[in-house]
């Protein structure tokens, strides 16, 4: 069975992505009462670019750069025994101590919640943060686990047959969020 995906619509353009991230950055500082003890961890691949943007924005607002790490959740996935699936293990690099920190975990899209679950397990193996927040650019619903985001760029009701593609300047050459349709042929 071949999976064909076709473009449906653009959900957010460059300006809208920027505004959403700016709002999230403000909300994070507000919730944390400043940037003290704050750090960001981006999940591969788009989550890393988005986390870097948030760190840049907070530096602009607060005048200090908070630490940032990158996280690969492959070794924590719950589907590694699925036949024929062998995801590539990518880099994890957290160049600071997580203990006692308020960690903002950043991903592009929150969907089933399985990636976030794996990321939480990975983070807890790496240290003992004082708390963990979840920030996502898009929450598209259809959760399979009791997980919610603390900061959301945009809530977007979707059908399961749809794909939400977040594009970033760093990874794709443009900032945008697009909706695609999957057709099984």
């Amino acid at each position, binding site marked *: 069975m071949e999976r064909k995906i076709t473009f449906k619509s653009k959900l957010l353009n460059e300006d809208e992505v920027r505004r959403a991230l700016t709002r999230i950055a403000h909300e994070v500082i507000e919730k944390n009462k400043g940037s003290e003890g704050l750090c960001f961890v981006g999940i*591969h*691949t788009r989550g890393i670019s988005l986390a870097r943007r948030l760190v840049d924005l907070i530096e602009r607002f607060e005048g200090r750069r908070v630490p940032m790490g990158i996280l*690969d*959740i*492959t*070794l*924590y*996935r719950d*589907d*590694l*025994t*699925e*036949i*024929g*699936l*062998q*995801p*590539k*293990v*990518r*880099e*994890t*690099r957290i160049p600071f101590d997580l203990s006692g920190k308020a960690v903002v975990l950043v991903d592009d899209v929150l969907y089933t919640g*399985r*990636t976030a679950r*794996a990321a939480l*397990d*990975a983070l807890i*193996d*790496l*240290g003992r943060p004082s708390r963990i927040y979840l920030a996502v650019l898009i929450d598209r619903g259809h959760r399979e686990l009791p997980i919610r985001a603390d900061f959301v760029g945009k809530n977007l009701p979707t059908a399961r047959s749809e794909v939400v593609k977040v594009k970033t300047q760093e990874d794709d050459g443009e900032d945008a969020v697009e909706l695609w349709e999957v057709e099984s042929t």
Partner: protein
Amino acid sequence: MSASATPTFPPHLLDFQDWSRPQIESLLETARMMQEVLARPVKKVPALMGFTVATVFFEPSTRTRISFELAARRMSADVVSFSGAMSSTAKGETYRDTLRTLEQMGIDAYIIRADAAGVCHQAYRWLGKPILNAGDGWRAHPTQALLDAFTLLERLGSLEGKKIAIVGDILHSRVARSNAELLPLLGATVVACGPATLLPAHLPGAHLTTDLREALQDADAVMVLRLQKERMDKGLLPSLPEYIAAYQVTRARLAWARPQAPLLHPGPMNRDVEMEGILAEAPQSLVERQVANGQAVRMAVLYHLLVGRKRSEG
């Protein structure tokens, strides 16, 4: 979850005949990621939870077995160990019976070391499960070659066009054979050197020489093999002093190689026999690095051999 898939891998690591350069490079890249896991305070990830791995060592070895077992445990696999040095007469059937017994216990992958070449190939035919060769006779020791390549890449960046000298008892060395197979696949040239009585007639992948100077001249890295003293009893060497005089890798001789050429040894080492003892602690020595990298490489091999495969139903 996003799935950027890696190239599909052979269901076994018997030697490198079924492995392509992109597969090897991808595996070594995974090993680099595993180093990060090993640098953590808690060195354990759940990737192989629910898989059961057996180390089956028909030939005694402590260090290799520990390295494999730790690698499997750090990935959360269950590990069982079978070790028994078998008498050489009873081989064929005994290997098979042992493996058949383990098969009934629901083993997902077998890490096998044997004193006879080809046991791992046979095991794959018998069991049809992922088989990892941990050394079979003089034939192959692929994870040793992988960790050597990994360690060399860490230091040299690339093996493309690099000259790697392997010195010592080439004839009886599965390490030399596996390296001669693997390193050229990554772009290196291998020169194997030893006395005529300890050189094979032919070593695929390597140029052979009895001239130590020729082997070391401008080498980008030097790998020294252990000289087993029992070779003397078989009349393959006239005397130890004679071997040392002609073939010991010394500081003075290492000057023939490129400056700071890394020095490797698969261990265990006979200090002041195959290599001037003091060199083991020299700045260019990567001996300890090899051991540390061994675990990361073995974790990567287990990941690629097991993830995405059907679990055993035994």
